[in-house]
């Protein structure tokens, strides 16, 4: 199953490599990883999307918690949460595709943020599966480039991750 692990860690040099190193050294699957500073300058927040059987996920959370720099950790997928990812897609927008791409982008609530006579660049946010669905709906031959940020996640309601 897919899990979104969200963690707060000390904003120290090398903190990211400790996490990345842990995943590769122990052979854990990593689908995406995002990291950025938080409102507290001493902390960074990391969101990791991973997949695996329950025992493996249990080990992943334990091993992450064991890292000295990790302050707090939560598996967001254990309860209500919101997941968002930003994607930029450059598509061919010539001939009949020009109209088609605009329509598809509207249906998926994307925004066209750059236009040339041959291409559109579409910006879209949503849960990972929505972005996947959008790409699936497009003609493969029309996709020139995709850039995705990887998921960010937050708990629903008053579910808060604080140090």
């Amino acid at each position, binding site marked *: 199953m897919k899990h979104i692990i969200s963690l707060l*860690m*000390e904003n120290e*040099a*090398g903190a990211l*490599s*400790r996490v990345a*190193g842990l995943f590769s*050294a122990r052979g854990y699957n990593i689908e995406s990883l995002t990291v950025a500073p938080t409102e507290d300058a001493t902390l960074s927040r990391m969101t990791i999307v991973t997949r695996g059987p329950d*025992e493996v996920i*249990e*080990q992943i959370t*334990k*091993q992450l*918690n*064991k890292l*000295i*720099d*990790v*302050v707090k950790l939560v598996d967001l997928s254990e309860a209500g949460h919101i997941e968002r990812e930003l994607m930029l897609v450059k598509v061919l927008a010539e001939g009949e595709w020009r109209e088609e791409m605009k329509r598809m982008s509207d249906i998926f609530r994307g925004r066209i943020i750059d236009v040339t006579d041959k291409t559109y660049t579409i910006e879209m946010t949503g849960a990972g599966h929505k972005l996947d669905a959008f790409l699936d709906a497009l003609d493969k031959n029309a996709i020139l480039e995709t850039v995705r940020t990887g998921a960010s996640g937050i708990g629903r309601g008053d579910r808060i991750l604080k*140090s």
Partner: protein
Amino acid sequence: MELTGAEITVRCLAEEGVEYVFGYPGGAVLNIYDAIYQQDKFKHVLVRHEQAAVHAADGYARATGRTGVALVTSGPGATNAVTGIATAYMDSIPLVIISGQVPTPAIGMDAFQEVDTVGITRPCVKHNFLVKDIRDLANTFKKAFYIAATGRPGPVLVDIPKDITQFTTEFSYPKKVSLRSYNPVTKGHSGQIKRAVQMLLEAKRPMIYAGGGVILSDAAPQLTELARLLGFPCTNTLMGLGGFPASDPLSVGMLGMHGTYEANMAVQHSDVLVAIGARFDDRVIGSPEHFYQEERKIIHIDIDPSSISKRVRVDVPIVGNVPEVLAEMIKLIKASKERPDQAALKTWLTQIELWRSRDCLKYDRHSDIIKPQFVLEKLHEITRGDAFITSDVGQHQMWAAQFYKFDKPRRWINSGGLGTMGFGLPAAMGVQLAHPGAMVACVTGEGSIQMNIQELATCKQFNIPLKIILLNNRYLGMVRQWQEFFYGERYAESYMDTLPDFVKLAEAYGHAGRRIDNPAEVEDALKWAFSAEMKEKLVFLDFRTDQSENVYPMIPGGKGLSEMILV
């Protein structure tokens, strides 16, 4: 008054009560060495290879329970230390390793003797630091010593750029340290402890499986009390030997790949298994599928949550410090009126005695070639079981574990997790320095001893009178054994026919040695080595042992505990 980074380093070590620093100088640590030269709070032991510095600090730590300290220069100094660091990491040994680094402006410039030490060591340390600001130096040492010794212990590396050792700042050593991101649990969950005690009291075929965590946390008294209070049999892992007295009738010896028949059978057939500071290693339980028993309940006490349910699902996990958890259990048991079913326990112990009578460690006592087992039995006899024994890695290690019956903790010092050949001699140096009057023997093989043989010079310089018990079978014996069993006796590269004359070699380094070819000479040689006459001398005994001897029992890789190859 302002101090330089080098002076601060030395002061921090003194504040931590460090007795010995094992190290080797080089460009990046010259300032630190200059500061060491001008202090008298701790002694520096100059090794002959940085790997040995870390092993010696490690041996010191294992024999005392205190944090060992090593100091190495940047680049090759640090990379040479890596094997030592990984060895300590796998066995959870508290160390602080100080490495020099190129000056901060040179970092990343492929400077002379620059390596990314923090990057290279990251997967084999509990934590590491690169000190980039001299104002952080003292605090970093405080954290390093705290992290190394608390929770599940481990090596912590502090990488210090050369310019930091030159800069100056006010020095004050922090009294306390607290890290919001690191708060190891010590007290076990009381509800879980109650459940565990209930399970123990209802057990019919109980078994205690105690590991290195008992040694690391000095919990031998509590473990012994618990086992005796309940009358439960106890087995120890390779790392746990001495945690429960081997001479106690309730001891069934070591379990695992080369464990005793009785220990492995008892673990496999128990109905309640209590794992205490042990991590269900693959060399211990064999294949998890075979190990799994539907009706057996497992209680697991460990300070590291990630050790629990890693390889084996357990029924009652208890995260906590062994002595505290065991003391709590003992209290509950004493307060309870219930006692385990004595008739069932008697039947179980009788069954275990039956397994024991299989005499799985028997060997040919009438051979006219020296049997390694015989040497170890004699070693035990002559040292009255009271020596500190270090070992290298291979058959000799397993025989030492099987035949030197350890009654006390911290007496058996070996590399279990990483299995590092070359560990024995430098580790013994650390042990002997920690316990100057004690008998210290390094049981080794002719393959292993050559991996750090240069340390004989260190022993000479620092008058370290340890005894080397070389079980010389002219083979990388453990490799040969696998080739005999599993590779159709094709002995690929496991034989070395160009061995040095070890006695002459020992003499060349300024020590005494003797070669022993006959069983009849074994006792005399050992008595000589441990005699008053040789008390101040390092003695190197080269025992020419049976080349074809194998370690039994043996569980082949991937097999289960009850699938032993027996002699």
